[in-house]
C-alpha cells in the first residue's frame, strides 16, 4: 500500500501540471506539428523531434514535454493516412495496417478504414496510459525478468506470424521469410564485424539496408506501379461509400479485439531492445487467429486494421517504461526524447532509475500527456479523414508522380546517400516480382525486420547460456527454460500449428491465377541464385567469427531446402497448380493498358536524372514530362501541379532542415538552395 500512498498524490500533481492552458496549448501545437510530419511517409518522429531540439534548451520542463510528446504521440496515428490510402507504410508501426487497410481503400471504403483505424489508435493509446499508470511503479523487476532467452522467444513468436501470412503455398512463404532474413543480414555483423554480402569498397552496404527503404520498396513501389499501369483511381467505386460512422461502429463491434491488441502493444513495448517493429505483426496475427471467417483477410477485413492500429499506439506508452525507468530508448525517437529531456529547464529531470523516486509526478505527466495527445491527434485525424480520403477517387496517374517524389525523398532521408534511392528501386523490383508470383510480401518483411533481433539475441543468449552451463547444468537449464520462455514457446507452437492450418484461406494478394511455367520458374531460380551466393559468402567467413556466419548459414540452408522442394514441385506439377501463380496471366495487371517496364521506366528516369542533375532539377523534368506525356495534362495544369510538387518538397525540406540528393552537376557547380 506504500506504493499507492506515493502514486496517488503524484498522479494528482501530474494532472495539476497538465491541466494548465499553457501546457495544453503547447500539446496541441506539438500534435499539429506531429501530424504535419507524420502524414509524409518515412519521416516520422525523429525528424520532427530533431526540429524541436534547439528550442528545448532551458525551456520550462512541462511545456517542453508537452510539445515533444504531442509530436511523438501522433506519428503512429497520422502515418495511417499513407498506409491506408496509398498502401505506403508510413512508418514501421503501420506496416501491418497496409495489408487490409489499403484493400479497403481500393474498395472505396477509405473513410471507413481510416475512422476504424483512428478509433482503435485512440483507444489503444488510452488503454496504454491506464495500464502504465498502475504498472509503472512495479515495472522494474518485471522488465528485468526479460533476459536474452525471453527476448529471443518473442522475436521467434513474431517470426512465427509468417505461418499465418505465408499464403497459399506455405513453402513459398517460408522461402520469402528466409530471403527477408538473409537480406537483413547484409552488411557488417554486429558481433564480430565480418562483412556479409558487402565490401568496404561500397561503404553503403556495410551499414545494411534500412527498414524504411525495405518497407517502402516491398509494399509501396509494387502498388504504385500496378495502379499506375491500370490508369484508374485507387478506389474502384467513384463514390467513397460509408463515412466515418461505419468505421466507429466497426470498432465497437470489435472492441474486445481492440482491448487485447492494445495490451499486446503495451506489453511488447515495455520490453527494451525489441522496439515496435514486431508489435503490429503479432497483433495482426492475433486478429487473424481470433476471427472465424478468415476469407476476407488481405482483401479488406476491418479486423485486420483494428488489431495493428490498437497495438501501435499502445506500444508508444509501453515504450516509455524502458525509456524513463532505465534510460534505454525503445526507439529512435525515444532516444532523442531522452537527450531532449536533459536540455529542459536546468536539467533537473534525469531519465533513469531515479525517475520514479524523484520525479514520479513528471513521469505520470508524461504518461497522461501521451494519452491526451492521442485524443487530440485522433480527433484532428478523424476530422480530416473524410477530405483526405477523397484522394482515392482521383485518377491515379495524377497521384503517382508525387508518390514517386515522396518515397524517393523519404528513402533519401534514411541515410542521405544517393544509394538509398537505388536501394529503394532494387527492393521495389523484388517487391514487384514477389507480388506478381504470389510470394508472401508480409513474410519477407517480417523476416527482414526480425533478422537483426533473431541473430543478435540467439548469439548472445547462446554465449551466456554456455557460460552458465560451464558453471553447472542446472544453472544453464534454469537460464534457458525460464517460466516466461516456456509460456512463449507454447504460444509460438500453438500459433504456428493454427497458422499453418489457416494460411491457405488468407490470400494477401487476392486470388492469383496460374499460367505458364516459365516465368515463375525463372523467378524461383533467381531467388535460389541469391540464396546460394549468400550461403557461399557466409561460409567464407573464418570460423573464429562463428557468431557472424551461423545465422546466415542456418537461415540460408532452410530457405534453400524450401526452394529445392519448390523446384521439384514445379517440375512435377501441371501448369494450373497454384504454385505457378502469376499476376500477368489474368486479372488487373494482365489487363492493364500499360506494361510493367514502360511504367517502371518513369521511376528509373527520375533516379537517373537525379544522379546527373540532383533531385530538384530532376523532379522538375520528371513532373513536367510525366504530366504532359503520360497523364496527357494541358500545359497550365502541368505547370501548376509541378510547381505545387516542388514547392511542397522545398517547404518540407526547408522546415525540417533536410537536404536533397545532389547529382554530378552539384559536384561540379555551386548552386543555391534548393538546387544544391
Amino acid at each position, binding site marked *: 500500500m506504500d506504493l499507492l500512498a506515493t502514486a496517488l498524490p503524484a498522479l494528482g500533481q501530474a494532472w495539476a501540471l497538465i491541466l494548465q492552458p499553457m501546457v495544453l496549448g503547447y500539446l496541441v501545437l506539438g500534435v499539429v506539428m506531429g501530424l504535419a510530419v507524420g502524414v509524409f511517409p518515412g519521416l516520422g518522429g*525523429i525528424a520532427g*523531434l*530533431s526540429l524541436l*531540439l*534547439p528550442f528545448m*534548451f532551458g525551456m520550462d520542463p512541462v511545456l517542453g514535454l508537452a510539445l515533444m510528446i504531442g509530436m511523438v504521440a501522433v506519428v503512429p496515428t497520422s502515418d495511417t493516412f499513407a498506409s491506408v490510402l496509398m498502401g505506403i507504410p508510413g512508418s514501421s508501426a503501420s506496416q501491418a495496417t497496409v495489408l487490409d487497410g489499403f484493400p479497403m481503400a481500393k474498395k472505396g471504403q477509405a473513410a471507413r478504414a481510416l475512422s476504424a483505424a483512428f478509433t482503435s489508435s485512440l483507444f489503444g493509446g488510452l488503454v496504454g496510459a491506464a495500464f502504465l499508470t498502475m504498472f509503472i511503479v512495479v515495472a522494474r523487476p518485471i522488465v*528485468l*525478468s*526479460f*533476459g*536474452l532467452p525471453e527476448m529471443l522467444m518473442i522475436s521467434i513468436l513474431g517470426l512465427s506470424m509468417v505461418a499465418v501470412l505465408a499464403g497459399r503455398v506455405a513453402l513459398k512463404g517460408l522461402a520469402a521469410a528466409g530471403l527477408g532474413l538473409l537480406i537483413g543480414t547484409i552488411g*557488417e*555483423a*554486429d*558481433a*564480430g*564485424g565480418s562483412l556479409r554480402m558487402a565490401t*568496404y569498397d561500397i*561503404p*553503403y552496404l*556495410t*551499414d545494411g539496408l534500412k527498414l524504411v527503404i525495405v518497407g517502402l520498396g516491398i509494399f509501396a513501389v509494387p502498388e504504385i506501379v500496378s495502379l499506375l499501369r491500370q490508369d484508374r483511381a485507387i478506389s474502384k467505386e467513384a463514390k467513397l461509400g460509408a463515412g466515418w460512422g461505419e468505421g466507429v461502429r466497426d470498432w465497437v463491434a470489435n472492441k474486445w479485439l481492440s482491448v487485447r491488441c492494445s495490451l499486446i502493444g503495451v506489453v511488447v513495448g515495455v520490453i*527494451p*531492445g525489441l522496439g515496435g517493429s514486431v508489435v503490429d505483426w503479432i497483433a495482426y496475427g492475433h486478429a487473424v487467429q481470433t476471427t472465424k471467417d478468415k476469407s476476407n483477410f488481405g482483401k479488406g477485413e476491418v479486423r485486420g486494421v483494428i488489431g495493428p492500429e490498437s497495438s501501435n499506439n499502445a506500444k508508444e506508452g509501453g515504450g516509455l517504461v524502458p525509456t524513463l525507468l*532505465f*534510460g*534505454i*530508448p525503445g526507439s*529512435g525517437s525515444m*532516444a*532523442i526524447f531522452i*537527450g*531532449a529531456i*536533459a*536540455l529542459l529547464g*536546468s*536539467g*533537473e529531470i*534525469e*531519465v*533513469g*532509475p*531515479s525517475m520514479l523516486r524523484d520525479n514520479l509526478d513528471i513521469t505520470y505527466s508524461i504518461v497522461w500527456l501521451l494519452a491526451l495527445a492521442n485524443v487530440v491527434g485522433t480527433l484532428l485525424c478523424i476530422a480530416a479523414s473524410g477530405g483526405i480520403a477523397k484522394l482515392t477517387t482521383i485518377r491515379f496517374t495524377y497521384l503517382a508522380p508525387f508518390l514517386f517524389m515522396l518515397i524517393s525523398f523519404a528513402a533519401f532521408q534514411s*541515410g*542521405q*546517400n544517393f544509394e538509398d534511392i537505388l536501394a529503394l528501386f532494387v527492393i521495389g523490383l523484388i517487391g514487384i516480382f514477389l507480388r506478381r508470383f504470389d510470394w508472401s510480401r508480409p513474410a519477407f518483411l517480417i523476416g527482414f525486420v526480425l533478422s537483426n533481433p533473431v541473430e*543478435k539475441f540467439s*548469439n*548472445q543468449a547462446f*554465449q*551466456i547460456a554456455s*557460460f552458465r552451463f*560451464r558453471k553447472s547444468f542446472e544453472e544453464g537449464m534454469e537460464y534457458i527454460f525460464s517460466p516466461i520462455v516456456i509460456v512463449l514457446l507454447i504460444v509460438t507452437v500453438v500459433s504456428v500449428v493454427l497458422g499453418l492450418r489457416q494460411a491457405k484461406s488468407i490470400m494477401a494478394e487476392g486470388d492469383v491465377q496460374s499460367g505458364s511455367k516459365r516465368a515463375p520458374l525463372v523467378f524461383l531460380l533467381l531467388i535460389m541464385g541469391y540464396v546460394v551466393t549468400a550461403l557461399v559468402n557466409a561460409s567464407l567467413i*573464418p570460423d*573464429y*567469427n562463428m*557468431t557472424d556466419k551461423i545465422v546466415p548459414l542456418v537461415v540460408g540452408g532452410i530457405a534453400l531446402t524450401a526452394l529445392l522442394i519448390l523446384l521439384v514441385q514445379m517440375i512435377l506439377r501441371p501448369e494450373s497448380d497454384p504454385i505457378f501463380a502469376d499476376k500477368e496471366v489474368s486479372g488487373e495487371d494482365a489487363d492493364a493498358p500499360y506494361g510493367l517496364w514502360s511504367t517502371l521506366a518513369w521511376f528509373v528516369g527520375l533516379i537517373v536524372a537525379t544522379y546527373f542533375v540532383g533531385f530538384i532539377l530532376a523532379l522538375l523534368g520528371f513532373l513536367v514530362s510525366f504530366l504532359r506525356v503520360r497523364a496527357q495534362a494541358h500545359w497550365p495544369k502541368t505547370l501548376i501541379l509541378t510547381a505545387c510538387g516542388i514547392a511542397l518538397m522545398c517547404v518540407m525540406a526547408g522546415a525540417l*532542415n533536410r537536404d536533397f540528393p545532389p547529382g554530378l552537376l552539384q559536384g561540379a557547380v555551386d548552386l543555391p538552395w534548393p538546387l544544391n
Partner: protein
Amino acid sequence: MTIKYFAASAVSAVCLAAPALAEVDFSGKTIEWVIPFSETGGSAKWANFFAPLLSEELPGKPTVVVKFMPGAGSTKGANWFQEQKHDEGTVLFGTSGSTQFPYLLDDPRVRYEYSDWHPVMASGTGGVAYLNPTDGEKFDGTANNLKDINFIYGSQGATRLDLVPLLAWEMLGMNVEPVFGIKGRGDGRLMFERGEATIDYQTSSSYLGASADLVEKGQAVPMMTWGALDEDGNIVRDPTFPDIPTFKEVCEATDGCETSGEAWDAWKAFFIAGFPVQKIAFLPAGTPEDVIATYTAAFDAVRNRDDFAKIAEKRVGKYPVFVGEGAAKATQRGTTVSAEAKAFVTNWLQEAYGVSLK
C-alpha cells in the same frame, strides 16, 4: 542594415590587407554543425548542448543547427568532411572516439586525415568500471583475488571504445568474456542488472544517471575509473569521482600488471583518444586564421559562462573544455599513437578476438 553598417563593411573590406582588423560576422548566417552519427547518440547530445550556447557567443548570433550524417561507423561523415573547403566558416564538424579509433587502427574505410583540420574545441569524459556484489567483495584495491573468476561483459565490439576496458581487464589478469553485438552502453547496463553480465563500465554521465543508483542499493561495487589527464598528460584521479581509484592505481597494486612497457603505452594512447579527448569540434582544412580565432573566442566565452559548470554537469559531465592552443594539444594527444602501440593493439585484437580491420 543601416548605412552605417554598410559603411563599416566597406571600411573593413578596404582594410582586408590587414586581416587582424577584418571582423568576422555571421549575422543572418546558418552554421551547420555536422555530426557523423545518428540523432540518438552521445555526440548528438554533446552537439545539441553546445549549439545554442555557441550561437549566442558568435558575432552576429547566427543560427547553429546540428546535422546528422551517420554511416559506416562515422567514417562516412568524416570522409565527407575531408572533402569540404573553407566557405564563410559556416561548417563545423564534430568527431568522437568512434571516429578517432578507426583512424588510429588504420580502418580501410578511413579516407580522412585529422592533421588537415583545425580543432577549435575539445572535451572529454571519464568512465567507471564496476563489479557485481559477490565478486565485488573480493576486490581489495587490487585484482589479485579476481583472477580466477570468469566474468561476462556486454560489449559493442572490440574495436570500439570497449577496447579500453577490455584491454585494462586483460592487463590486470582478469578473465573477461565479452558478449558482442549490443547497441549501446545502456544495453550493457541492463544486461548487468539482469545478472547476465557480471562486470560493466559506463561513461561518467551514464554512471551518475543510473549505475550509481545500483551502487547505492548494493547491487554493484565500483572498481576503478579510467582516470583523467592533468596539464602534463599524467593520469590522475577523475575529478567527478575523487573517491574511486584509477586503473593506474589498481594496476600498480596488482601482481603482474605494469604501468610501463608497450601494453601500458598502448592502453594509455587509446584511453586518451577514447575518454579525455573524446569529442572534438573542427573547422575544415584551409580555414583562415580570423575565423578560427572567432570560433575559439566563442567557445572560450561559452566555457567561461558563470553557469557553465552547473548546466554542463548534468548534460555532458564535469570535465575540462579545451579551446585554442589547448584544443590543438588535446587533439594532437587524442589522434596520435606510436607505431608500437598501434602494432600491439592490432596484434592483440587479432589474437584475443580474431578481429582484423583489413
